[in-house]
């Protein structure tokens, strides 16, 4: 049976991991390569590096980070943040990324999804989507936002479910659904948003934004029908280890991969 994936997301700025990562066992908690190794040993099923600066200068630093990580850690690696062209995607895949995640660039230029999928295969192209509840909508609707890196982002007027649908038709192989309302709150994922998207597309859906407890992950994978969960703070602050979370989920009947570590 396919297991549900637990994916830590590392925000990287100029080659350093940001957000308050504090682990006793780490020599350098800001080193993405070391942190990636740490999460791998804990049983992370994949890793996401998100370049929050994403200027062209930093892209070459990011490439080094990816190259370094991929030479030491043998689990799937996704890179996102500031990738705007097929060449940007190629530059990351070439050094060892397995997937690239595009968000604002895909909204501005949906053909980018198709071009990427044609060149590298759909399995490489992840659509990242930031969605926000439309207040007072019945039935409940969500609007797609872009440029969420700065000042709350910009509304696009696009419906999240329609956009997810369209992105899959264009060639996206996976969708990361990030709830703007829940992001950073640690009060749980937007379960209704997740299940609405998951039911309407044929590709895997990854929940993002809002995880505060292992039960939040459980809810996303059951009521939210997500295939994987992405989380940052819950792991970075060391409140729960990936191992703890996986045991919690396994005890509640969720299929997870428990045999991480050296043979």
């Amino acid at each position: 049976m396919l297991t549900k994936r637990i994916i830590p997301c590392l925000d990287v700025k100029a080659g350093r991991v940001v957000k308050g990562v504090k682990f006793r066992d780490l020599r350098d908690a800001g080193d993405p390569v070391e942190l990636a190794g740490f999460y791998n040993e804990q049983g992370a099923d994949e890793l996401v590096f998100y370049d929050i600066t994403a200027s062209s200068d930093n892209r070459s630093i990011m490439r080094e980070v990816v190259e370094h990580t991929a030479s030491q850690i043998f689990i799937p690696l996704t890179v996102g943040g500031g990738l705007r062209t097929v060449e940007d995607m190629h530059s990351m895949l070439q050094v060892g990324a397995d997937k690239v995640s595009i968000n604002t660039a895909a909204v501005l230029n949906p053909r980018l999804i198709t071009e990427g999928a044609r060149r590298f295969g759909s399995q490489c192209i992840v659509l990242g989507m930031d969605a926000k509840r439309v207040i007072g909508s019945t039935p409940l609707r969500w609007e797609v936002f872009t440029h969420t890196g700065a000042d709350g982002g910009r509304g696009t007027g696009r419906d999240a479910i329609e956009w997810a649908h369209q992105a899959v038709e264009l060639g996206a192989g996976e969708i990361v659904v990030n709830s703007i309302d829940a992001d950073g709150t640690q009060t749980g994922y937007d379960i209704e948003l997740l299940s609405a998207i998951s039911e309407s597309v044929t590709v895997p859906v990854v929940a993002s934004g809002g995880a505060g407890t292992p039960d939040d992950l459980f809810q996303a994978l059951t009521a939210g029908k997500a295939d994987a969960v992405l989380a940052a703070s819950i792991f970075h602050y060391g409140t729960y280890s990936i191992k703890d979370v996986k045991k919690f989920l396994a005890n509640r009947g969720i299929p997870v991969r428990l045999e991480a570590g050296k043979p």
Partner: protein
Amino acid sequence: MIIVIDYGAGNLRSVVNALTLLGYSHRVSQKPADVLSANTVILPGVGAAGDTMKSLEKLALTKPIKQYIAENRPFLGICIGLQVLLSTTKEGGEQKCLGIIPGRVRRLSEGVKIPHMGWNQVKQLKNHPVFAGIPDNTNFYFVHSYYAVPENNVAVIGTTDYGISFCSVLAQGKLVATQFHPEKSGEWGLKLYDNFMKMAGEKR
């Protein structure tokens, strides 16, 4: 020499990284002569089987690969590198493949998320050196939308459940092929590479 076949589409980087980490010297090549003179050949793969066949034909690699395998020399196919061993694939219309293992490649059934993406268990049907020290039902990392349906089960040594039970590991003589990506399957994946290289007589 271990030759990793580069036909222009697959992401070879992880395969190369795995061999480097394990300490096996290797070369990436797309030359037919290198395939024929290799001691071990790896055919990695990401993307579509139809496109892969076209690329292999364009590079005049299909004949040398067939000859190499017919001589029962060590060959490891990964993902698309497994699928192209069958007779035909449905991917990109009906297309001819290498025809080493009789059978077809079909799209995963409706009712499951496609691609099949993530860690899933491999049930070991037979004892095989490539599984040495790897527990039955260990999880490996899969990413694919199509799967191999061999005409008979003689060469099937591992299966995986995803809506249906499908062939996830093939072995025939010194040929081994996996539908999953051992180079993305953590320590157990590396162990599988190491097992295969030992079987192939490669030295670190």
